[in-house]
């Protein structure tokens, strides 16, 4: 094995009494792509934050290129040749690409000379790595894939030899992700070392040379990618065998439960996000809407749920038309049998500061069964919340605990338990497994299939193409506010990927 680019020995890090990292040893050989996987809360981000100087380890040592290095701040990390591309980009949106790249390395008081230097350096980097970006473009006008490229360029401009990428493909189309992987391969060829943090096993298999698995703060295994399987990695991550494929029978579609006709929605800035969208969802089927984030799916979902108002169009729920021009309250829709699992559980689906039991009735708090006069029937709410926690395996099973203290997967189960247990006729679900770990994904998928088999109509919106493909009985693809195609569950990823990228549906169908 080649010389180590990064060597971690005995890293420990505790937050109070919580041990986020325990005795981590990690050896990342120079010039390789190294994957790090693990569930949420396994300690991946903590470990990388230590490496990048956001946190300091309680004990243990870091060597970079064989030299013991102390990293107290991100500046130390940059000096040691480590660059990081964050999951949420750290770019100034209204600056140009060039201005962003010199940010933090401006040099003198007057920017002229450093801009000129950056421009020529940028041209060289673009040539060497195939990272084409217009240096004078404004960041907010660039698509997400290019913004990410700017982040990579930023790290390289600072002389990074080791590049850490945190969940880099979450916001990309399959095509953009492929392009990113080609760039990473190119970087590797030039002798750079790449560390890829992800929870997508497929990516690990596709691109990495070695992969390390973390679980509950410990490094449980490191494998050569060529010598392992997806099943083995999943098992290592979760600590037990997991079902990666969703098992489901034939759909038996029944009556039309939800119909959308010619729906057009503008967002708060006045940009038309949903353009003349029509579709139906029938009882006993799951209709999935695939698309890259930001193509109008969120607005569509919120409009059907009564949170947003539409410019034009018609939504019919269980045969009755809904007033989409603003008069319909999400509460009314709930009474009529529509349940909504929102995309953003932190700000919409839950009040994190509330106790779990309080969240277990959010939106249903005005139903007579939970009230005693003007008072909430706390005893009943707590008892019911406790039962649902058992039923949905929400841990820790304590309905008095503050919601913020649950892990992402458990928070999502709290929302699902609330919406599913009210026995709705139509369930609309946004990003059911975003930020949720493998074990919980399996459970959530099973519950959604159960809903379908009970004859409910389910509308699913997800940016995870795998999820849409494995759950849906019909797949609609959204691009730029329109539904650009409908496919069956057997559609290939490439076919859907092209549709998601806006390539004409006729070509894609071939």
């Amino acid at each position, binding site marked *: 094995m080649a010389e180590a680019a990064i060597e971690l020995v005995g890293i420990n890090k505790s*937050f*109070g*009494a*919580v041990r*986020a990292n325990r005795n981590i040893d990690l050896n990342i050989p120079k010039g390789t792509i190294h994957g790090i996987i693990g*569930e*949420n*809360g396994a300690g*991946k981000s*903590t470990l990388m934050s230590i490496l990048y100087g956001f946190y300091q380890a309680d004990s243990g040592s870091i060597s970079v290129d064989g030299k013991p290095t102390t990293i107290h701040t991100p500046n130390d990390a940059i000096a040691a040749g480590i660059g990081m591309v964050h999951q949420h980009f750290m770019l100034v949106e209204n600056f140009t690409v060039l201005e962003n790249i010199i940010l933090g390395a401006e040099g003198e008081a007057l920017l002229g000379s450093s801009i000129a230097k950056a421009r020529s350096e940028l041209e060289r980097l673009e040539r060497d790595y195939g990272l084409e970006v217009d240096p004078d473009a404004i960041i907010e006008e660039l698509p997400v894939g290019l913004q990410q490229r700017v982040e990579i360029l930023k790290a390289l401009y600072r002389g990074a030899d080791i590049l850490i990428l945190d969940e880099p493909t979450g916001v990309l189309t399959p095509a953009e992700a492929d392009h990113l992987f080609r760039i990473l391969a190119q970087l590797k060829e030039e002798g750079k070392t790449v560390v890829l943090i992800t929870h997508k096993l497929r990516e690990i298999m596709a691109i990495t040379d070695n992969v390390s698995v973390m*679980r*509950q703060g410990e490094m449980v295994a490191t494998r050569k990618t060529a010598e392992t399987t997806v099943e083995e990695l999943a098992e290592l991550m*979760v*600590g037990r065998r997991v079902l990666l494929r969703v098992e489901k029978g034939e759909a038996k579609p029944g009556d039309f439960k939800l119909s959308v006709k010619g729906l057009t929605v503008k967002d708060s800035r006045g940009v038309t996000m949903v353009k003349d969208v029509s579709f139906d969802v029938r009882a006993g089927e799951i209709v999935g809407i695939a698309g890259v984030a930001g193509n109008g799916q969120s607005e569509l979902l919120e409009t059907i*749920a*009564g*949170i947003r108002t539409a410019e034009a169009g018609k939504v019919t729920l269980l045969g009755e038309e809904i007033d989409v021009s603003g008069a319909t*309250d*999400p*509460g*009314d*829709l*709930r009474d009529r049998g529509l349940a*909504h699992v929102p995309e*953003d559980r932190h*700000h*919409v*689906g*839950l*009040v*994190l*500061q*509330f106790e779990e039991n*309080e969240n277990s009735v*959010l*939106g249903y*708090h*005005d139903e007579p069964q939970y*009230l005693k006069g*003007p*008072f*909430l029937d*706390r005893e009943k709410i707590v008892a019911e919340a406790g039962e649902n926690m058992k039923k949905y*395996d*929400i*841990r*820790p099973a304590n309905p008095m*605990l*503050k919601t913020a*203290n*649950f*892990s*992402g*997967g*458990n928070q999502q*189960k709290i929302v699902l338990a609330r919406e599913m247990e009210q026995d709705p006729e139509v369930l609309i679900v946004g990003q059911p497994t975003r930020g949720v*770990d493998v*074990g*919980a994904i399996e*459970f959530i998928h099973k519950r959604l299939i159960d809903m379908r088999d009970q004859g409910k109509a389910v509308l699913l919106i997800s940016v995870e193409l795998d999820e849409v493909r494995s759950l849906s009985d019909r797949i609609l693809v959204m691009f730029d506010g329109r539904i650009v195609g409908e496919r069956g569950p057997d559609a290939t990823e490439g076919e859907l990927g092209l549709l998601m990228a806006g390539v004409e549906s006729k070509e894609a169908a071939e």
Partner: protein
Amino acid sequence: MSAPYAKLPGWADYGLIPVINLLVAFLVAGLVVMLVGENPLRAAGILVEGAFGRGQSIAYTLYYATSFIFTGLAVAVAFHCGLFNIGGEGQAYIGGIGVAIVCLSLDGVFPWWINFPLAILGAGAVGAFWAFIPGILQAKRGSHIVITTIMFNFIAASVMVYLLVDVIKPAGSMAPQTRTFLEGGQLPKLNWLIEMFGLPIRSSPFNITFLLALVCAWLVWLLIWRTKLGYEIRTQGHSPKAARYAGIGEARIIVITMIISGALAGMMALNPIMGDQHRVQLDFVTGAGFVGIAVALMGRSHPVGIIPAAILFGALYQGGAELSFEIPTISRDMIVIIQGLVILFAGALEHMFRPQIQTLFATLRPRSAGVEATSGEGA
């Protein structure tokens, strides 16, 4: 990915941290006293003695605290809805009209125990009305509540000057105030409550409005944590998006919250007017509306915190008055500085010492640091 953190036990969160903040505030205040060449220990002695030393001083402290409980609760209720009601001062001031209408027209007709509930309704209704206008402007027009309530403080002040100088001043009187209420507009004192502990009192303004304040504190607790309305208020306050999702009408909840908040602030007028001076004078609120903000901040918007915080500020008012009397170099303004420091450390810098204390707790007693909460199994 949520960063793990050590959770403090309740008593440290709600007891230890405020006490430490308070001690630091007094420490800095002591430095200020030293700066003007006085002995801080002696000053502290006089302040405490002046606030709690005799039955008389305790009665005064609790009298001031009564006003602060009302205004503190008013600010707290609005806080729970994510609204910053700075208009407590004006709502309390204008609430005086409600008390005046009841007392001036009925003080010769009914005894106090009939007039008191009527005056509560009057003060509450007028205060509520004064908060309702900014509330509806916020809800329907998006006019920021901070700006409108501040402006309404000035309007209230002008309206009251006009009324007291031109309308309800008895003919021939030189002072801008109403006539003195008759027996039926005067509330009984509560001096016996303190005398029960063997502390004699000559005279004090401490009156039964204090009990009303405690009842209101309990009702606010009930409202916020036990009723459906309180649940909706808190949802709106923590996350307006979640409130929208839950079908809670934003406009409706904002207006209702402001009405409740204004009513509580308005009731503050009962304490000085019916309880002590038995007439409506100019500026009878004397800043209690603003102190209410500090009280709500320090009391963490919880009635159980607001009552001690109100007593603390009552003590600063009363003890501070004694202090500036005993040591003339420490003027009223110095007292304001001390109050300001308390607000600064207990309110604005509330979390300054939290990380250190959390680390301390995690090291000393790992068990108490809420491990079970954060290490919940995968899933």
